[in-house]
């Protein structure tokens, strides 16, 4: 490179400096924005996950209500009811809590499935009364026997 080229190139280089600097700043800002967004996005997913679990809660309660509705339309669970505060084991992670809730729902289902409908319950009541009378009779007889012996 001769002196002229060096002079010309050096002048051009210096003149290009503000533009290059601006470009660098813009690039850095974009990079920072991207990285911020990335962080935000990464947390967003997980936070969203927690909301999913909260929705899961509603779903569980709704499912539980449906189950209860099958046994004579009782509404034992009202979504509007405040949920009871519970002592939470700090070690309890959300998967375990979900599993437990699922188990509770299953148990409810089981319980519901074993509960009689009102007609069945009436029969059961009549049968129960008969049984109770029979049982009472037996008890009376026995009591009487016992008394007899005494």
């Amino acid at each position, binding site marked *: 490179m001769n*002196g*002229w080229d*060096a*002079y*010309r*190139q*050096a*002048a*051009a*280089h*210096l*003149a290009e*400096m*503000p*533009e*290059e*600097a601006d470009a*660098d*700043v813009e690039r*850095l800002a974009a990079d920072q924005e991207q*990285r*911020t967004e990335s*962080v*935000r996005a990464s*947390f967003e997913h997980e*936070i969203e*996950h*927690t*909301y999913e*679990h*909260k929705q*899961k*809660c509603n779903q*569980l*309660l709704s499912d*539980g209500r449906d189950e*209860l509705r099958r046994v004579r339309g009782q509404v*034992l*669970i009202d979504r509007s009811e405040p*949920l*009871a*505060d*519970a002592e*939470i084991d700090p070690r*309890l992670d*959300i998967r375990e809590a*979900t599993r*437990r*809730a699922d*188990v*509770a*729902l299953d*148990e*409810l*289902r*089981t*319980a519901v499935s*074993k*509960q*009689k409908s009102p007609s069945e319950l009436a029969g059961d009541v009549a049968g129960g009364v008969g049984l109770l009378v029979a049982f009472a009779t037996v008890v009376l007889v026995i009591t009487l026997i016992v008394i007899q012996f005494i």
Partner: protein
Amino acid sequence: MLGRARTIRATQALVDAVAILHQVADRDRQALEQRRADDLKQLRAGFAEEAGDLYEDHAAETSRRRTALNDAVTTFSTPQHDGGPFDVAEYVRLGQATLDTDLPDRAASPTIPVWAPLLDHGNLVLTGSWSDTVAGLIRSMVHQTLTDSGPGQVRIRSVDPSVRSALAAFSPLADVRDDLLTPPATSEHEVEEMLQGLLADVRATVDMFQGRRSTLGQLRRETGQPIGTYQLLVVTDFPAGFSRRATEGLLNVMRAGPAVGVSTIVHVDPAFRSTPGTPAVDTLASQAETIAVTDQGVRTGWLPGWTMTPDPEPDLTTTADLAEKARGAQAPQIDFLDCQPNVDLLSDVSTHRLTATIGRAGQRPVTLTLGDEIDQRHNILVSGAVGQGKSNLLMVLIHSLAMRYPPSELEMHLLDFKEGVTLEPLGARSSPPSWLPHAVSIGLNSDRTYGASVLSHLVAEFERRATLMRGHGDNITKYRLADPSHRMPRILVVIDEFQVLFDADDDTSERALADLERLARKGRAYGIHLVLASQTLSGITSMLTKQDGIFAQFPIRLALKNSAAESRAVLDQNNTAAARLRYRGELLVNLDFGDVESNRRATVCWAQDRQLAQLRQRLCDHSGADHSRRPTTFDGAHAPSLAEAHQKLSGIRRSPDSTAARSALLGTTVDVRSEPVGFALTADNGRHLAVVGAGAPRSGSGISEADNQAVGALQAAALSLAAQHGGDGAQIVIVDLLPETTSTACNMNEFTNILGTSGVTVTRYDNKNVDDYLISLNDMIESRQPDDAPVYVVAFGLDRVRKFRHLDMARGATVTPADGVHALLRDGPPVGAHLLAWWSSLRVMNEHLGLEASGTVDGILALRVTSNDAQDLFGPFTVWKPDGPRGLLHDRVESSEPSVIVPFRPLMTAQIDTVRQMVEQL
């Protein structure tokens, strides 16, 4: 009932589990949000650091670039201009520039000088309406181009259709050389013509490059010669005045010009529209760097982002200094020996030709060949104004030939008709001995008579050779090939300021012209070649009738810088190229009778006096036997001294025959041989010599009484007679009637004493006793016998005898001094008595001789006499205008016409001892 309770428990368990799940989810979300906030906070902290780092990086980079720019500016702002011919304004400064935007380091914006590439590098296109700024920039660029380039290096050409006259301040350059600043082209026709001329120059220079990729500057530096021509074309108001053809021509010049030294500055005015179909302005800009002048400032294409403030206009009153420097421009020196080909000293033969190398054209040596049968170039015509290096050119030519050819192959006759001393070192008088062994004769301060005699001698040689060659072919080459043993060197005749030969319209001129014409026409066949040099060929009126015929025999024309008229005279009517040469030493070589198409520029190599003297010493040493042959040197302004007559006197040996005629030596001939001229003093009646006229000019001319030619001639005569007689009893009577000042100046006492040592009897008389002696001559002559020892009466200033015809009756005298002299004149020679006398006045001499002795003196040596006196003495057609030490000698018995001689000088004080020893050895 149990199922219900169980259901209720299960329901409660579910509600609890969901509550826990809900709370766990809330807990996790809060934790995540906290982490996210923390992460983002940390990220932002990192970002600030990164931004800080980036700023520091930018500041550091800006600083580095500032430093790099400063370094580049410092390096570039110190161009090496030494004022020499190789200086070229490769870049010109326009102003200073500042950056348009702030720099990242927030420091002040730097200011840098703005240079623009020009000669050797490119063109400039300057856009903007005509304004003071535009005009100032153009003038500034032109001014710097001239100041930063070698003096006279750059020609400025301009196109100025709107008559802006921006370059008017440079007009003094045109006074130096009309091509340094040509008148601006204003019309389309003139513009086209100018561009065609430029394109022709470009093509010619491109040819010189011989395919090398280089610039003119590089080529000049490589060759060490300012070859080619730098030109700067300045166009204003483009495209006004430009036709389509002219625009295309301009584009071609801009495209091909810069590398070969033609750069262009084009001012483009947006107000002017191009002729339809012509190349757009953008096309011009593609061949140039651009400068835009707008209301917002001046910006250059090569410094984007910078705005320029033009420098103040230079002081244009210095243009006169530029012109003065251009006037004194000198070519760089090419050493003579470096320029010569590597051939053995004195080893070449001239059978076929003579070859000399006189300089270089680019990297090629400039070689001239004379006598070649194919080229048919036999003679050279040289022209050059005073001080342009003509003498150097001739010396280079002479010595280049002398180096190659031994004296047996080349002889030279060198004539210098100017008052310079160029050829003097080549002569035999040079001390230490370093004469040119090839030189047969050298004429210094030559007069026309000598020049004519040299030509006559050469014509005689030409005729001699013609006779020799009969039967051996019609030229020297054939003759020498036919008989290689025969020595016939070629002869080179160099005549500097030859026009002096023809200054007067007289016999000498006519004779010289006839001889010159004959030699020019036919000399070549016999190996005689002419080199005629002159500073003014255009004014030789006496050659008018034969000039064309003579110059037609001179195909080789060498023109140093001269006027346009002289250029036409030496080259061709259409060839004024010699007027456009730039330097002393720059030469136009034309081998085709000056035809403009055959011009070739060259630089004559430079011969230093000491270098040439050393070379001649080597030539003398190498020449062997020829070394002893000194050239005959004739100095028109110099009379030979008695000491210098040594060789001549040595040749006049004493004759054993006492009755043999003796010759009185008077001077030397004005011819090639410069032989001694004597007057024979035989026993025939009338063998006396009368020297007539003033021996020295009355005043002025720088010739003093010590150079009295009459005294010198008679002293030489006496000395030579003494040398021839020795101790044979001969008697020399010195009659010294000179004024005391003259007698003293001419060392008459010492001369008489020296004469007495030669063996002859010397008697001296003066004013006190001269009358008695002259009276006694009457008796002496009567008493003498033919075989008596000779007596020579040598009378200095006989016209000072006051009582020449006075009969002193008081003392009983019966004869007068005049009678004694008359007796000697009438009857002396048969009895060995001769008179050699000087009368300063012809009238007095005639009175002294009277009727009694009229016609008794055969020998007349006229010195400073009037033309009328000369015609009285020698006839009505005699022309005699003595200039310098000359005498007109006529021996009425030997010749019908007088001949010019150079009388000896009187005995010089510094040479008394030398002459005494010389006489004692004779």
